[in-house]
C-alpha cells in the first residue's frame, strides 16, 4: 500500500483518499462545523501549507476550525467513516514537518481552543485547552509565583497541544524535565470518536502509562482536547555564568566536568563561533567573539543555593580552561546573556537565505568529537554551519546554511543533515531530541530502528488508529520505505 514516489504527503491513507467524494465530505463537514469553520480554496488554504519546516510544502484538501469538543469528535468520526486523513495542528511552529498537510487530507486546526480553564495555585496545576500558548500558561500562573517549566524557544507562539505532540523541551530540561515530566492529565479524542481521559490529578494512574505513550506521539494516536499541566514554583533567584573557551574540545570537556562535580545547572548551553558571530550582530548580547565556543550555565534557587552553585561553577569552568568567566550582575544582564541564545535561529536566518536545523542528541562526552566531524562535513558539502547546543542534555542544533535558489544546495544541505543524524545514532544517540521526526527525519528512522521495532510502532499505532488516518506518513516509516531508503541512501551520503 505504500505510495512510493508520490511526494511529501505519502503514506498509507493517501491512496484511499483518492476515492473520497470531496463534495460529500464538504457538505458533511459544513453540517458539523460553525460558520467560517471550514476553509477551502487556494487563498484560504495557503497559510496551512507548511509548519516551521518551510522547506516542505503541501496544500491540504480542506482545513477545519472546530470550536467545541463535540465538533472535533464529529469531525474525527466523519474522517474515519469516509477514510479522510487528518493532520492536527496548533500554531504550526514545529520544526520537523509534523503538521505538514497531507495531500487529499484535512488539517484539523485547534487554534480556537485557546482557553485557560483553571489555574489552581494550591494544587499547582493548570487546566488548559490545546491551543493555549506555552508562555500564556506561565503568564497566567505568574501572580501565584508559579510557572510552566518546559520552555521551547518558540514559547511565545507554540501551543501546549503541539508541545504534547512533540514532547517539547527547552533550555531548562536537564533540571526541570521535558513535557512528559510536566503533564498530569490529558483528555484525548480517538479517531473513532471515543473520548478518553488519561492520567489525572494524582501522580499516577492504574494500568499502562498512556501519558508517556501519548506525549511525543506526533499527532499519530489521538487529538488532545484538554491538558492538566504541573506548575513549578518560581525560583527566588537565577543567575547565569558565561564562559569563553579557546577551542571546542575544552568547552565540551567543561560540560562533563560540571556534571562530574555534582552540579545540575538549570540550563547549560553552548554556542560555537559561527553562532555567536551571527547572534552578536543581531542582539548585542555581549558575547566574546574571539572565543571558539562559549558556555552559558544557569543556576537557580534560593539566594544561598545560587551563591554556592555559582561559586562551584566558576571554579570548575576556570579549572577546565575557560578564558573569560562572567556572572550576570542582575536580572537585566541575565536576560541579555540569554537573549542571544534564544535568538540564535532568527539570527542565523538573517545571514543566510535558508537554513536547516538538526536536532540529534548524543552522549555529552562526544560533543567535542561531533563538532570536529561537523566541521569536516561542512567542508565536504561546501556549506557553512553554526552550532547551538543544549550541552547539558547533549542535544545539538547544528544550523546548516544554504540557498534553496542555488541548484543542488538543498540536496547538499539535506545530505549534510543526514550525515549528522546518522553519526548521532552511531555515537549512541538519537536523530531527534526534541523537535520530533515528522516528515523531515522519517527516513532516518530506518537508521535508528530495526524493521521489528518499526513493526511494533505500527502495531501501537493500529491499537489507536487502525485505518492509519491520523497524520499518515509522519514519524514512523513503513518497512517498505525503509527497504528503499537502505538501497538508495540519502543524496550525498556514503
Amino acid at each position, binding site marked *: 500500500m505504500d505510495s512510493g514516489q508520490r511526494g511529501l504527503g505519502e503514506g498509507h491513507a493517501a491512496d484511499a483518499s483518492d476515492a473520497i467524494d470531496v463534495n460529500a465530505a464538504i457538505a458533511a463537514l459544513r453540517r458539523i462545523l460553525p460558520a467560517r469553520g471550514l476553509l477551502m480554496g487556494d487563498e484560504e488554504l495557503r497559510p496551512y501549507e507548511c509548519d516551521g519546516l518551510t522547506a516542505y510544502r503541501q496544500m491540504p484538501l480542506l482545513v477545519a476550525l472546530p470550536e467545541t469538543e463535540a465538533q472535533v469528535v464529529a469531525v474525527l468520526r466523519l474522517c474515519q467513516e469516509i477514510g479522510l486523513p487528518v493532520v492536527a495542528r496548533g500554531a504550526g511552529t514545529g520544526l520537523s514537518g509534523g503538521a505538514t498537510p497531507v495531500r487529499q487530507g484535512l488539517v484539523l486546526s485547534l487554534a480556537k481552543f485557546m482557553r485557560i480553564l483553571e489555574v489552581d*495555585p*494550591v*494544587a*499547582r496545576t493548570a487546566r488548559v485547552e490545546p491551543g493555549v500558548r506555552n508562555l500564556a500558561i506561565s503568564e497566567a500562573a505568574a501572580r*501565584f*509565583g*508559579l510557572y510552566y517549566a518546559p520552555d521551547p524557544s518558540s514559547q511565545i507562539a507554540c501551543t501546549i497541544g503541539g508541545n504534547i505532540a512533540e*514532547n517539547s523541551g527547552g533550555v531548562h*530540561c536537564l533540571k526541570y524535565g521535558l513535557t*512528559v*515530566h510536566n503533564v498530569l492529565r490529558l483528555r484525548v479524542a*480517538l479517531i473513532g470518536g471515543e473520548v*478518553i*481521559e488519561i492520567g*489525572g*490529578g*494524582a*501522580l*499516577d*494512574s*492504574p*494500568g*499502562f*502509562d498512556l501519558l*508517556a*505513550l501519548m506525549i*511525543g506521539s506526533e499527532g499519530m494516536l489521538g487529538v488532545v482536547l484538554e491538558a492538566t499541566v504541573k506548575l513549578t*514554583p*518560581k525560583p*527566588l533567584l537565577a543567575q547565569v555564568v558565561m564562559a569563553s573557551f579557546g577551542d571546542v574540545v575544552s568547552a565540551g570537556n567543561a560540560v*562533563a*566536568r560540571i*556534571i562530574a562535580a555534582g552540579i*545540575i545547572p538549570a540550563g547549560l548551553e553552548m554556542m560555537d563561533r559561527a553562532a555567536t558571530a551571527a547572534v552578536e550582530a543581531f542582539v548585542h548580547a555581549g558575547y566574546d567573539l574571539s572565543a571558539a565556543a562559549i558556555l552559558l550555565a544557569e543556576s537557580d*534557587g*534560593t539566594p*544561598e*543555593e545560587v551563591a*554556592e552553585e555559582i561559586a562551584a561553577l566558576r571554579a570548575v569552568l576556570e579549572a577546565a580552561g575557560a578564558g573569560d568567566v562572567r556572572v550576570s550582575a542582575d536580572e537585566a544582564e541575565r536576560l541579555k546573556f540569554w537573549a542571544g541564545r534564544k535568538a540564535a535561529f532568527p539570527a542565523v536566518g538573517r545571514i543566510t537565505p535558508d537554513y536547516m536545523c538538526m536536532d540529534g*542528541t*548524543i*552522549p555529552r*562526552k562526544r560533543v567535542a568529537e561531533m563538532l570536529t566531524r561537523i566541521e569536516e562535513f561542512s567542508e565536504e558539502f561546501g556549506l557553512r554551519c553554526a552550532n547551538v547546543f543544549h550541552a*547539558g*542534555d547533549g542535544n545539538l542544533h547544528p544550523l546548516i546554511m544554504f540557498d534553496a535558489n542555488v541548484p543542488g544546495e538543498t540536496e547538499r544541505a539535506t545530505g549534510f543533515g543526514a550525515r549528522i543524524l546518522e553519526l548521532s545514532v552511531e555515537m*549512541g*544517540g*538519537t536523530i*531527534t*531530541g526534541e523537535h*520530533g*521526526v515528522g516528515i523531515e527525519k522519517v527516513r532516518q528512522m530506518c537508521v*535508528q*530502528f530495526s524493521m*521489528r521495532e518499526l513493526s*511494533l510502532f505500527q*502495531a*501501537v499505532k493500529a*491499537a489507536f488508529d487502525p485505518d492509519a488516518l491520523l497524520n499518515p506518513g509522519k514519524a*514512523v516509516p513503513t518497512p517498505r520505505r525503509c527497504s528503499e531508503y537502505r538501497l538508495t541512501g540519502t543524496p550525498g551520503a556514503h
Partner: protein
Amino acid sequence: MGDFAAELVERVRQAAAAKTPLRIRGGGSKDFYGGPLEGEVLDTRRHAGIVAYDPTELVITARCGTQLSEIEAALAGEGQMLAFEPPRFDQAATLGGVVAAGLSGPRRVAAGSVRDFVLGVRMLDGRGEVLNFGGQVMKNVAGYDVSRLMAGAMGCLGLLLEVSLKVLPLPAAEATLRLEVPQGRALELLNGWAGRPLPISASCWQDDALTLRLSGASAAVAAACRQLGGESVADGAAFWLALREQRAAFFADDTPLWRLSLPSVAAPLDLPGAQLLEWGGALRWLKSGAAPERIRAAAAGAGGHATLFRGSEEARAEGAFQAPPPPLLALHRRLKRAFDPAGIFNPGRMFREF
C-alpha cells in the same frame, strides 16, 4: 551472572509457540503486589550485570537481573543515586522488577517517578523479538516512547532485558525536621510549601507527626530549616529508609494495606483504619478492613484511585488495581495484543481481562 539474553529469547519463543503463560520473576521481592501469580516462572536473575555506567553522562545501563543493591552501591561510589528512591522490600530486588512494578519512594514527589528516569530499554516482546527503544541520552523523541510505557506495566507487555536510567548527584546536604500537626493542617502546610521554592524532598505524616526531609545545597537546607521550624530529627536517614522499605511500625501487621494515590489537595479521607501520608499528601497508605468498594469509591470521589497493595490472594484476585473505564480498558487490551499477541506474559497480574 552475565548475558543470558539468548536463553530468555528461546524460552519466550517456545512459550509463545505453545501459548504457555509465563510469570516473569526476578528476586520475587514484589510477589505480593498485583493480581495472583500465574504461569511458569521465568527467572531473570542470571541475566545480570551493569553494562555501562559513566557518571558524567548521568546514565546507568544494567541487565534486568542486576540487584538493585548492586546498582545503588555503584552509584553511591560516584556520589550519585536513583533519585526516585525505589523500595527494595528485600535484598533480592532486581532492576527489572523495579521498573516493571513502577514503584517509587519518598523522594518521588520532588524528583519524579521511575518512568521519569527511564531513558531506554532493551526488551523481548511476546514473539521473542529483541527490541530497543529509547537509549542512553537525556532527550529522545524518535518513535513512540515505548521505554517509559514499560515502567509500571507489571511485565504484561514484555520482558525487560536491559534498562538505562538517568541518575542524579546525591544532594550535598540533608536534614530531617518534625512538627506536631493534625492531618488537615499538615495537608494545608504541605500544599502551601509545595508552591514555594523550598528544598523539601520527602514528607511523612502519621499520628499528628509531620516529618520533612530537606535536600540540596547546605546553605539552602540550613535556611529552610530556620524557615520551617519544628524539631530536628537526629537519625533522619534511618527514618526515611524504614519508610521507603515499609519497615516502619505502621506497616507491621496483617491488616489489608491500601495505597491511595490522590491529588495532594484532597481533604483527609473519612475511612476506618490508620493512615500514613507521603508525597506531600499525594500518597496515602490506609490499613483497613473496610469493604474494597467503599475504599475505591472514596479514592475515586477524591479524584484518585486505590490499589490493594498488600492483602490476601483471594482479595487481590478480585482486582488489586482499579480497572479503568471501558474505552480505556479496550485500549489496554489492544496494546497488550500488539506487544504480546499470544497473551503469555504475566496473565492477570495487572487486570483480570488479560
